[in-house]
């Protein structure tokens, strides 16, 4: 897959964008350690898109996902969609999605020579948690008109769930890489 055609690239990007949507349709599951706060699998898709597709394609996949949400499809977790979601408190996370995927892909690319599992864990943690939280917290502080510290305190409850998703993203990337190495485009 050294020189994939435009069509193949489009097919892959659309697939990951659809995967993020499909993960959002999964029922929410509550994890006990987070006090039963329902978490969704959607940001797992963001991490996977970056880790698997690499920085540029990963970010484009997320932009495509956001565009289709804005067009009015209820694809965000909980069945939300339409332009209204960009006016709500979680706008920072939405804007952060492409940046998070870009970061995941970039780190994955930089760690090209290290084993897949730790590299994917590290990329997913930095992109899918650190970068995404920076955008998300900034968006909350702005939209809710609160201080950054207040907004950040909200995120504490989501942290265990997101760490679980980082673990999953790494394991999935590793297993897919074993079964279909060329699918890890960030390493091609």
């Amino acid at each position, binding site marked *: 897959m050294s020189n*994939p*055609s*435009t*069509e*193949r*690239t*489009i*097919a*892959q*990007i*659309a*697939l990951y*964008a*659809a*995967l993020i*949507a*499909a993960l959002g*349709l999964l029922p929410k599951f509550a994890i006990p350690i987070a006090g039963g706060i329902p978490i969704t699998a959607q940001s797992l898709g963001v991490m996977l898109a970056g880790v698997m597709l690499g920085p540029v394609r990963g970010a484009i996949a997320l932009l*495509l*996902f956001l*565009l*289709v949400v*804005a*067009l*009015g*499809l*209820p*694809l965000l977790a*909980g069945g*939300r*969609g*339409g*332009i*209204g*979601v*960009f*006016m*709500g*408190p979680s706008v920072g996370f939405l804007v952060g999605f492409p940046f998070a995927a870009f970061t995941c892909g970039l780190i994955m690319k930089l760690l090209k020579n290290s084993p897949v599992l730790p590299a994917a864990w590290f990329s997913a943690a930095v992109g899918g948690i650190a970068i995404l939280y920076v955008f998300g917290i900034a968006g909350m502080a702005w*939209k*809710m*008109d*609160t*201080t950054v510290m*207040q907004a950040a305190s*909200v995120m504490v409850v989501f942290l265990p769930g997101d760490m679980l998703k980082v673990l999953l993203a790494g394991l*999935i990337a590793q*297993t*897919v890489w074993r*079964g*279909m190495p060329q*699918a890890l485009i960030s390493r091609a």
Partner: protein
Amino acid sequence: MISLYRPASSWLHNHRAGHKLLALCFVSIFIFPLTSLALLLSLLMLCASMYLSLGKDGLAEMRVVVPLWPWFLMMLAFHWYSGEPVAGLVAVVKMVLMILLANLLTLSTRQSDLLSALQQGLTPITWLGFSTRPLALSVSLMIRYIPVLVLLLGQHRQAWRARGGAERRKWLLVVPALIGALRLADHVGESLTARGGVSGFR
């Protein structure tokens, strides 16, 4: 595919998608700096009357903001804690207003109309030699993929069950399903190329 569009005939449905989009942009820019609670509340009333004018159960469409109540509660609590309860109310009312206005566009405009408005808005890039066709193709491909992915996962699950796999470990199927989906994407890409690619047959 499910959509938030609400088929009906109202004055709002008759406006062009691009115009509604532009209007939403301007109104949002106008509302954003407002801090007067009275003004925001009267704008909210105005917005509610727009919902009302959409015909019967138009007002019910305002329920989109209901699931956000924990956020609103949190905003009020944070502002209460900092000793500015009115600022919290202003922030909540402003957010409700913006979401409701944006939702008016979503429920009165077909996706296809919005997409063509967007393509029209992107006309300048075609002068630079770019095409908007890959964009339209990606959007339709993605929408088509979603039910296919759900189906794919369902097939893996049935096969897993037929082999006697434990129900609580079914999450293990994510990887084989993902590999299957990636194979499918490769086939789709090749088929697209075989059919003339993104630009179609010329």
